[in-house]
């Protein structure tokens, strides 16, 4: 199916050099967006990768021209379920796509980004970098457009979505479906949002982003409000554990910024990602002859995209005789570590990029 029109919402940081050779495309994760390194217009919070992107940071905007686009199927300006159906020429009123929005794949997201990169007249990206679902896109970029990607950095990623990951996504989707306010996906007609269902989906997913150690360290078994006396302590729902309160907060803030149908669309795109399957089951075939320089990064306590998945990609790249660096960063912060302050990761990324810049002949 072809979309009649496609909008790609994006942000840039830094300056494109005269040779148009210093561009880095950042691919965001499931619930991320294009506001990588600036205050988010809806939430007022700092950019989601402020720790990594900016002047003097590992992805140095004094040196590189950074582009980040909202994914196809998203809800922050790029075409997605919340976009109008028509191409603007016919009279379809305010009818939105909703659940009729066609299923998109990670590869479709990459192709939408490719249109943007062509539009910006960038023939070759210096690097494509992304974590989690963004890492899937980085892999797909390197496999689909090897000559347009000098370096690829899939972080905390995998070449396919595992059965366990699909299972967690399905719990989230069922929570959305079960919310009466979802209204078969046509909630936008009544102006309601399936806030409870989407919040539960977010809460469930959020658990998978953290490690058990991180939960224990941050919350332990502490109660939000310590019981005053014994009578209060025996009240089953009287004392709320801190971890519950944290998840409630994560859920309730999420629904203000994210569209439920976009969540359904994007989780499905992740579920269907299997790069090897697109190459007769041989992941190495996706990268054969590639001249792209790869850096794979995993985090030791990440059980959603565990190190074994990054190692499997590394071995496939070895089979393709590609140039690959691979590190596992020791941390107890789980999958979320890629977003957080991890000095070893940041040093590794910065060093890899400057090494690549030398090989690419980029001048400082």
């Amino acid at each position, binding site marked *: 199916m072809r979309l009649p029109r496609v909008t790609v919402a994006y942000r840039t940081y830094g300056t494109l050099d005269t040779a148009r050779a210093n561009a880095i495309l950042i691919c965001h994760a499931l619930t991320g967006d294009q506001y990588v390194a600036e205050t988010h217009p809806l939430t007022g919070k700092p950019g989601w990768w402020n720790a990594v992107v900016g002047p003097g940071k590992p992805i140095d905007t004094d040196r590189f021209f950074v582009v980040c686009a909202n994914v196809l199927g998203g809800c922050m300006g790029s075409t997605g379920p919340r976009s109008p159906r028509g191409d603007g020429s016919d009279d379809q009123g305010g009818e939105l796509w909703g659940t009729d929005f066609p299923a998109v794949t990670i590869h479709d997201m990459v192709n939408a980004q490719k249109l943007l990169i062509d539009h910006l007249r960038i023939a070759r990206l210096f690097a494509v970098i992304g974590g989690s679902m963004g890492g899937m896109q980085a892999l797909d970029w390197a496999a689909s457009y090897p000559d347009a990607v000098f370096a690829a950095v899939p972080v905390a990623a995998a070449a396919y979505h595992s059965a366990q990951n699909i299972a967690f996504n399905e719990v989230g989707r069922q929570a959305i479906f079960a919310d009466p306010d979802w209204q078969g996906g046509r909630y936008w007609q009544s102006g309601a949002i399936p806030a409870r269902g989407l919040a539960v989906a977010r809460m469930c997913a959020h658990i998978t982003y953290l490690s058990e150690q991180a939960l224990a360290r941050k919350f332990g078994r502490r109660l939000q409000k310590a019981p005053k006396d014994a009578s209060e302590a025996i009240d089953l729902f009287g004392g709320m554990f801190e971890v519950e309160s944290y998840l409630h907060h994560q859920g309730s803030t999420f629904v203000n910024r994210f569209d439920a149908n976009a969540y359904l669309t994007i989780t499905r795109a992740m579920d269907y990602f299997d790069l090897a399957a697109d190459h007769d089951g041989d992941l190495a075939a996706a990268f054969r002859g590639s001249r792209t320089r790869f850096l794979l990064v995993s985090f030791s306590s990440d059980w959603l995209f565990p190190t074994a998945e990054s190692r499997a990609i590394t071995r496939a790249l070895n089979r393709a*005789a590609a140039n690959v660096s*691979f590190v596992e960063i020791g941390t107890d912060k789980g999958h979320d570590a890629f977003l957080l302050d991890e000095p070893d990761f940041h040093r590794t990324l910065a060093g890899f990029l400057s090494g690549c810049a030398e090989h690419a002949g980029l001048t400082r």
Partner: protein
Amino acid sequence: MTTLEPVRFVAKNMRLDLRLIAAMVAPKARVLDIGCGDGALIEHLFRTQGCDARGIEIDMALVTRAVAHGMPVMHGDADSDLQHYPDGAFDYVVLSRTLQAVERPREVLRQMLRIGTRAIVSFPNFGFWRLRWQLLTTGRMPVTATWDREWYETPNIHPCTIRDFFALCAAEGYVVENWLAVDEGGRKSPWRRAPRLANLFGEQAMFLLRNGGAA
């Protein structure tokens, strides 16, 4: 037979055997350095000889340091990761002071000469006279600057002598294109053409090998 060029460039802090290995590598070659540590050799090969040099290292802290320094290094180990590379992917595969620490040295050598046209192997020589003397006089496992751990905690589970290594090469049909032994001070030993003397006085050995059938 390749003739050894004198070492012209000496990278600061680069171990002696790495300098000698670098001298065996042709310019612009594709090189895989197994057990590359912090990437000193691959940086040297890239900067001074224009090689496409990559590394594998088992110690994650060293991998992180090497990648943070811009070197293409992956976490992995000689015993389990070489099998994933295609035949003839490299001109040289280097194993520096690591052979004695791998699980299956013979298989690692086979893999090296499958994925590379040539293999460069360096190892501490267990036939060195000081080790023989310690074993003879004390009756205990030798401990020297090179063999510096007690037997129960050494990672060096497969020590061998220079003569042992020659025997393995003969058994496997590898051609020794070049070899040398160095003494404690890192000087090339004068007994280069006398394996028995080298085996007694060489503290480290270095071999340049290729497969018997290949050119």
